[in-house]
Structure formats: structure tokens, C-alpha cells
């Protein structure tokens, strides 16, 4: 699984979404997320505060990553420093067993793939996380999902589920109008959902000081495909904006680790919402898990029966097709980034710095 073939990056690349609709449908319906292992990507393996002098263990697709600090600088290695008999070193680390590491946005990012291709230019842009991190700990947390990472992301990018599964936190499906738009390139997919006069999220009603019964909502989910990392940005009026970074690290092909950062520094210090909203992840993630956990084994092998779709599934379908296209490209030995993931995406997600 972990071999590196690095050949001919310059091959023809056809937009898998704009092409023949039959190919699109086939890719949507042949979706076996457990079979997709993408390489050459930065993964946010730990919050900066979690990396200390004593090594912490993480994994990406079962590949071991030990993280610790040497003179304050984060390092990542394939073997524990106390491992006296390290054997079977992979091609993912250098001769000394070290991986490429970056520290940014309050995370320690490690490169999974060919170390020669590690480049800070492939680090996802997250406009509302301070570059140096340093968010207070109450805005950070870890939750886990008993499912394959792409299912967690497919769950996230399809927000109609929130009206049913998370109704008690974010409000139900009652609204006047819902418009979903999807933008993509070869490395990212961005979904924008606009809801007119939607039932107010209970959490905002009870703790966020929102008095009205309905609110105007604009939610953006942007996924960095290779890094399995997502931005979840919500603008609510009335109400405070929600700035969540939601990385889904595939620790194994069937288990996902989410070290989240919910930056609520935009919310007034006197407002309870600032402290409670980040904690909502514990509840929301358990609700998601009730569905994604039983779903996961049902996506482990090819299925002869096609999933049924509605027009609201556009984003999820395109996510499947883009992931499949990347996997196919990598299978042909093409690991190049064709689009820049580190360019500031504020405009794309509609973030104005407030």
C-alpha cells in the first residue's frame, strides 16, 4: 500500500466532472472509499500543544508517526526513539527515519508520501486560524469517528443531514428556501449553502443571545481533498459566525481522528456561545457517528446496488468523483498538485476577517 511510484507527472488531465455524464455517474456509484489512499499531502496530526518532549504516537493509514520536540522544534519520525531495533523503514521518511514536518495554524503537520515532494506550498489555506496558532485550549479538541475518513467528509459536505441529525443543536429543516452551490478544482471542493428564514439553531437561541425565530444562513464547507481536511464556515444573521477547522485524519482506512479548532474569538467574551460552541463538537460528532459508524462497513466493498441520489447531493457526488479522479491519477504515478491549495481562500469562502 505504501510504495511510491513517481513517474511522469505531465499526463492529460480531463475535468472528471465536466466530462461525459455517464463517467460521472459511474464514478459516483463505484464509490468504495476504503480503497482510496491518497499520498503526497500534509496531514495535521496534532494540535501544537499536544506535541511535547515525550513522543506522541499518531498514524496515517496505519503508518506510524511519532511526534515530539527537540529544542522546541517539532519533529516526526517513523520509529519511537526508544525503539532499539527499527526495521522495515518505509520510503515515506528520510534515511534517519524522519518525516517532513511543518508547524502552522496551531497544528503540527506531517507529510505523508514521497519526502522529496514535501512543499509548504501544498499546505491548505485556513483564513480564520492565526498562522502562529495560540488559540486558547477551550477552542480545541479531539473527537474520533469509527468510519472511513471520506465518509466523515461526505457527511460534512452534505448539510441537509444536519437538519435531521443535529436539529437539537443547529435547528431543523424548516426554512423558506435552500440554495446549494458547488465549486471545485482538482484539489479542493467548496460547497455554499444559503438558507432563507431557517429555524434558529437552538444553541444560538439558548446561549448565543439570538432572539428571533428565524435566521439567514450561509454555510461553507471546503475540503482539501488530499489532506482530508475541511473548513466549515457559517455566517448567521442574526447570530455570530462559526469558524471551524475540521481535519479528518485517516488513522486507518476505517477510523478517523478529528483534532478540531473552533475559533470563537469573534464572539463577545461575555457571550456563553464563545465557550459552549466549541464543545458542541462532542455532541454533534456522536450524532454523526450513529450514522457513519453503521455506514462504514457498508462501503467497504464494491456494491452492485447503486446509491440513490437527490439534487441536494450534488456536493457529495462531486466529492466522490474528485477523490476517485485523484486516486486514479496517483495510480498512474501522477502525484503533482495541479491547483494551489495554499493560496488564501478568504474570497472563496466569503470570509471578511470579521
Amino acid at each position, binding site marked *: 500500500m505504501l510504495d511510491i511510484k513517481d513517474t511522469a507527472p505531465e499526463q492529460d488531465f480531463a475535468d472528471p466532472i465536466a466530462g461525459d455524464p455517464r463517467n460521472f455517474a459511474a464514478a459516483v456509484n463505484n464509490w468504495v472509499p476504503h480503497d482510496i489512499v491518497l499520498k503526497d499531502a500534509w496531514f495535521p496530526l496534532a494540535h501544537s500543544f499536544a506535541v511535547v518532549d515525550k513522543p506522541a504516537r499518531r498514524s496515517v493509514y496505519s503508518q506510524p508517526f511519532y511526534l515530539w520536540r527537540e529544542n522546541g522544534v517539532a519533529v516526526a519520525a517513523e520509529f519511537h526513539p526508544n525503539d532499539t531495533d527499527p526495521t522495515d523503514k518505509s520510503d515515506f521518511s528520510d534515511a534517519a527515519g524522519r518525516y517532513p514536518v511543518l508547524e502552522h495554524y496551531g497544528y503540527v503537520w506531517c507529510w505523508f508520501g514521497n519526502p522529496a515532494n514535501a512543499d509548504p506550498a501544498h499546505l491548505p489555506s485556513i483564513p480564520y486560524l492565526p498562522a502562529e496558532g495560540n488559540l486558547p485550549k477551550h477552542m480545541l479538541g479531539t473527537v474520533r469517528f469509527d468510519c472511513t475518513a471520506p465518509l466523515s467528509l*461526505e457527511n460534512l459536505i*452534505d448539510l*441537509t*443531514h444536519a*437538519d*435531521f*441529525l443535529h436539529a437539537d443543536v443547529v435547528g431543523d*429543516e424548516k426554512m423558506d*428556501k*435552500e440554495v446549494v452551490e458547488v465549486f471545485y478544482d482538482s484539489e479542493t471542493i467548496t460547497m455554499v449553502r444559503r438558507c432563507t428564514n431557517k429555524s434558529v439553531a437552538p444553541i444560538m437561541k439558548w446561549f448565543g443571545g439570538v432572539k428571533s425565530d428565524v435566521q439567514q444562513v450561509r454555510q461553507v464547507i471546503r475540503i482539501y481533498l488530499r489532506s482530508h481536511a475541511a473548513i466549515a464556515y457559517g455566517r448567521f444573521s442574526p447570530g455570530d459566525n462559526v469558524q471551524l477547522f475540521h481535519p479528518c485524519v485517516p488513522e486507518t482506512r476505517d477510523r478517523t481522528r478529528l483534532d478540531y479548532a473552533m475559533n470563537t474569538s469573534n464572539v463577545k467574551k461575555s457571550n456563553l456561545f464563545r465557550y459552549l460552541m466549541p464543545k458542541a463538537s462532542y455532541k454533534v460528532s456522536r450524532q454523526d457517528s*450513529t*450514522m457513519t459508524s*453503521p*455506514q462504514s462497513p*457498508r*462501503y467497504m466493498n464494491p456494491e452492485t*446496488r447503486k*446509491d*440513490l*441520489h*437527490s*439534487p*441536494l447531493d450534488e456536493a457529495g457526488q462531486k466529492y466522490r468523483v474528485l477523490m476517485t479522479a485523484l486516486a486514479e491519477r496517483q495510480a498512474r504515478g501522477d502525484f503533482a498538485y495541479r491547483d494551489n491549495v495554499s493560496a488564501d481562500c478568504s474570497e472563496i469562502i466569503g470570509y471578511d476577517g470579521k
Partner: protein
Amino acid sequence: MTEDVWWAVARSEEVTGDKPINIDIGDQPVVLWRDKDGFVRALEDRCPHRRAPLSLGCVLASGAIQCGYHGWTYDGESGRLVDIPNLKGEQKYPPIYRAVPFAVSEGGGFVRICLNAKAAAPVSPTTETLPLSGTENVSLSHEHLIAALFDDPALVIAIKGVHYTPYLMSELAEQNGKLVLERSCQWKSPHWPAPFSSDFPITLRIGTDPVTGETDLLLRDNAFNTLLSATVAPVPAARGVTQVRWRAKLGSTRPGLMAKMLGFGTPFRILPSVNGAALRTLKPSASIHAAALREEIRSHQAAAHNVAA
């Protein structure tokens, strides 16, 4: 597992309109609920949208089931999609938009389903609803559970105060399409050991469906009073577990102290776990004949079918 078999997968009281329940027949997960007219509905417990279990959803006032993930709503009888709440306005969905429906029949306090939605209703569903009932998940496969019932019922069922002897009044034989045997029993009160007893006070008659293993039990004394009757319905569930539903009734005439005592506490139980040491060394006796008898019954039925056709 043939498609046209009817399995007693629930007791009537377990299926309500409040919350759907999940059962399985082998590897086939099934969701059950009761609609607004009181009919039990059964669909594959897998939403065709994103494969979430429908049993995690809810029953709407209309009697339809709504998936808990994105709210797709299905009609219980046909399995057809009737609503996607987020798609505002009236929608028409093509017929392939549906969950797989199964046939349902309810009678005698049991809900039976057949994986073939077009199957004809079962021939003779029990009509009387026996008042005592229970459900147990037994960590023993369907096949082995039935074999143990034939060879030593003590490993799988407990009837209050009853000790099963190894001696049969009649060996396993075919009777009206069922596998029937009658076993001599003793009360668990001071008595001669079974090998030295000339007569036994009670017998347990077992009549088992050759395919489903659904079994009628009859405990009688030597004056031919029925002390207890019961129906035990084992269904092969996931991971080799057998889900057992049972219903029972005490006889009205129960002479003698031990027979009277049956009416206090718990007269009948299915054991949730099996004594592995005892099971491993259990000598196969009646169960040895079962395979041959099942084959015989099958060929009789096939012949009868051919004559009819």
C-alpha cells in the same frame, strides 16, 4: 435459507408505532414498525440513499418511516420513497426510488416476515395469543440450538421444577410435516434416579418445523393434563446468534404440588447462554435422525406439489 420461509421475528408487543426496531434474518437486516392503521411494516434496514439503518429513524404520523440521516421517507407497504423533506414542494419519485419491502403476517402474538415480498401468507398461523412471552438472544447458531433442543433441552430451555431425562417415549419422527419427539421428565423433587425409575410423572412433547425450527412444546402429566404449552421461535440472526421469541401458557388443571408451583415466579425461560463444556460433550441422539427426516419431508412436499401441479 430459502426465500419463501416465514420467520417469527418479533412478538406483537415489541413492534409499535413509537420507535422502529431492528432484527435480522441471517445477514439480512430488517426494520419493523407499526403504521397508523396498526399494520406491521418491514423493510430492509438500509436506506437506499446512503445506506444508513432505517431503524435509527422515526415513524411519522402518516405511518411512513423517516430515515434519521437526511429524512428520506418511505411507505411501509411498497417501500417507495414518498418524501425528501429538504426538496420543498410536491415531488414525484420514479419507482426505483424505494427500499426493499418484505411480506408481513401477524398472528398468535407473533410477527412473521418473509423475505419474498410476494409470498403467500403462511398457511396456519397460530391464532391463540399465549399470555406469557419473552425474547432472548442466544449465542448459539440456529442449527446447533435446535439440535440441542432435540438432544438435551436442559441446555437451552428451563421449565420451572422440570428435569429432563435422557429417555424418550417416542423418538424423533415426522408427524404432519413436523419433527416430533416426546421425552420423559421428572420433577426436581426427591425421586429415584432416572435410570432406575419405572415410570415418569411428566413428559415433554416437542414438535419442530423442519426449516424454521419453530417449535411447539407440550408439558403433560401422566393423567394427560396439559401443564404448560409454549411456542418457541428461533431465528438465525447476525454473527451466528439465534434470536428466540417465545410465548407460553399454563394449563388450567395442574394437580400436585410441583405442577401448582409452576404458576409462581417464572415458569418458562430460554437460556441466554449455553454451557459450552456440556454442549461440546453432548451425545448426539435424536438430532442424528433430524437431517434424514428433513430430507424426507422435503421430498414428500415436492411430490405433493408435483401432484397438485
